[in-house]
């Protein structure tokens, strides 16, 4: 490669889509995450819907108390959106505040889920239904945990004053991820907690 043909900087061209590439990339990645949940839903549907196998020990799944968890998570999606809407030039204080609120709501959700794990009365090693209950909700819980970490990183960058109306794709990405986590939970809650098995 001679110096004459070694172009020292990339040419700059406008992207073809209205969406920033990193956001498009995140959305496509979230399709793959939805497919991952799909694999576990496939197992769940086969076991509980098609074959009607009951929870261990005829456990009565607590749809009522968990609906409060659902409301908390849905609320956290709103606060996350407010963080985006509050972006302005002067400082990231409002962004920090809304992200913190989202974080606290998410952490509460996770804590209540952990509490539920402790009172269900069976373990993942208790039969196939125990296995799918814990892995499906646990996979979601892991995603919530990752979301909390991302929210924390968003807060760190807010403290450093890095978000602005021109540069905030990271914040948009965090919030899209958080909404994804919320939507998956709503589907999970409906299918696992609310729908009766055959």
């Amino acid at each position, binding site marked *: 490669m001679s110096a004459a043909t070694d172009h020292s900087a990339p040419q700059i061209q406008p992207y073809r889509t209205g969406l920033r590439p990193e956001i498009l990339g995140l959305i496509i990645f979230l399709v793959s995450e939805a497919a*991952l949940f799909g*694999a576990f839903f496939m*197992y769940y549907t086969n076991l509980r819907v098609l074959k009607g196998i009951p929870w261990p020990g005829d456990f009565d799944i607590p749809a009522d108390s968990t609906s409060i968890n659902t409301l908390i998570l849905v609320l956290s999606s709103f606060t996350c959106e407010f963080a985006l809407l509050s972006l302005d030039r002067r400082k990231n204080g409002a962004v920090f505040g809304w992200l913190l609120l989202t974080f606290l709501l998410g952490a509460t959700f996770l804590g209540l889920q952990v509490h539920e794990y402790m009172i269900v009365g069976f373990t993942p*090693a208790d*039969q196939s239904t125990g296995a799918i209950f814990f*892995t499906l909700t646990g996979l979601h819980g892991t995603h919530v945990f990752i979301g909390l970490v991302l929210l924390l990183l968003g807060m760190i960058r807010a403290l450093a004053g890095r978000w602005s109306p021109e540069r905030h794709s990271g914040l948009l990405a965090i919030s899209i991820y958080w909404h994804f986590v919320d939507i998956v939970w709503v589907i999970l809650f409906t299918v696992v907690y609310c729908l009766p098995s055959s």
Partner: protein
Amino acid sequence: MTAVLKPTLARCLWVAPAFAALAILITVAARSLVGMTPVLQESTLLTVAYIAGGIGFIVGIGGFDYWFTWMRGGELDPNDHSQHGAHSWGDYFKFNTDHKVIGIQYIVFTFIMFLVGGMFAEIFRSELANPGQQVVTNQQYNGLISQHGVIMIFVFMVPVFAGIGNYVIPLMIGAADMAFPRLNAVSFWLLPVAAFTLLSSFMFGSFDGGWTGYPTLSEQSGYGMTLYQLGVQLAGASSIATAVNFLVTIIAMRAPGMTLFRMPLLVWANLATSALVVAATPFIAGAQFMAMFDREMGTHFFTVAGNGDTLVYQHIFWFYSHPAVYIMILPGFGIISEVIATHARKPVFGYRAVAFSSAGIAILGFAVWAHHMFASGMEPWLRVPIMLSTLLIAIPTGIKIFSWLGTMWGGVLRMTTANLFAIGFIFTFVIGGLSGVMLAVVPFDVSITNSYFIVAHFHYVLFGGSIMTIYAGFYHWFPKVTGRMYNEVLGRWHFWITFVAMNLTFFPMHYQGLEGMPRRVADYAPQFAWSNMLISIAAFILGASTLIFVYNMIHSARHGKKAGANPWGGLTLEWMLSSPPPIFNFPATPRVIGGPYRYGEEGAKHAIVPEVEPATVETTV
């Protein structure tokens, strides 16, 4: 000495074990705190060590450096190109963000894995040459055939197309690089981690469940089976990351004027393939998670005692693994379109049909998975619909075959090695497709299931299909990558020996299957002795022919005749750059003004590459 502190492979030598050791410590502490006995459970500690060590390897090579800076709120410089471009051969052993470097890293690494997987085949072919057991035990044999399949599929066949696409696609669409160059590099470096995980399972007795790993055998096997489950997930993660990259690059970074129907067909092929990867690969990840939890955490997904269901593993597994076979052939179809059009100097016949059929195969590919399960005892009503959808999916593939034949018809075929492989591909892939259509028919499939007929079918479509396209692509783009011509005489020897040996190796397997020889067995009934000897001899010739190729590539890269920018007279954008291309590819954004295959049209151009950016430049954030 400072190499062990800078992001290099040398640094991985201590960072990866450090991560593994830390994970073991944390696990031991957690287990003793919670009261799980035995605290020092070998399989658990090994598993966390492998996972953490793999992450540590990527940290050591510098894969997360930029993201760590972002995470702690540090200042970022998007114009920092210090990790970009091949300035010396050492760059190929580092974390490099240049798609051309990554493409070559992929191609060289996966080809080495091809040779490793091929070596396993030669070992078990030497066992199969004679009836009785001479070379390996049953357990070793099972380990070898399982490793052969897994290595070939997950660390050769799927990623080699990622490598070819990585090198060629940004050039073909007029881009400076891929959309996410750092993620691209991480995708590559996950492959050695996956390969290490899979191959090191030999230390633990390997895994014996074939490449499919069905429970309940997978629950009873030695520790090597867990490494199979882990390795598959690592390779899957690499694949998904690459697919996200390809999709965003192709959607968002095409040069102005390149509408979807002015894209070269290789780009269409990778678009369809990447959509398949994103939607399907997580299913095998899920299946292996569940199987691994059964092994390591005592869950009962697939045990009979725990009310589990072994059959649903097959459903989830094949829901990925059928689209996987299209993942392993669609990019190859794209390569063949490029090679035939260029070496026949004719536009592709039925461009839109080929483009739409790629999408059709991708979509329909999700509707046929249960044809791998006709004899599994699944619900009987599923068999006929799946048979119909399977027969249907032969149609879009057939459309492509006719398209390539139509492209060649009336053209002046230059019988370069690349073109020989493309034409040979049509011959052998159609044979594989015909046996596939036979297998779609349920009564036939049920009678020869688990026999060598199946082995014949998939080797015809994978070797006679995918591998022929890979060789065609290697020969076709060799001048662009190295700037030199390969030796055409050696290339022809390579083609003809490969073509004849491949047919001699795999065609007799159809007969063996029809006569009732089962697959995945180390020994067989005496009437199969002559055919097995013939196949083993042919297999060794096939293996040896690969050496001609390797010698040709290495020797020609250093001493071949200089190639110039466009030795084939191609019209797609990569041929408008020097060989090899400059580090950032184009001096200014190309303008695409027509289709990519306008051969024979007087004065037709696909694109113009200006020397300087013509108008005001819009900055991208």
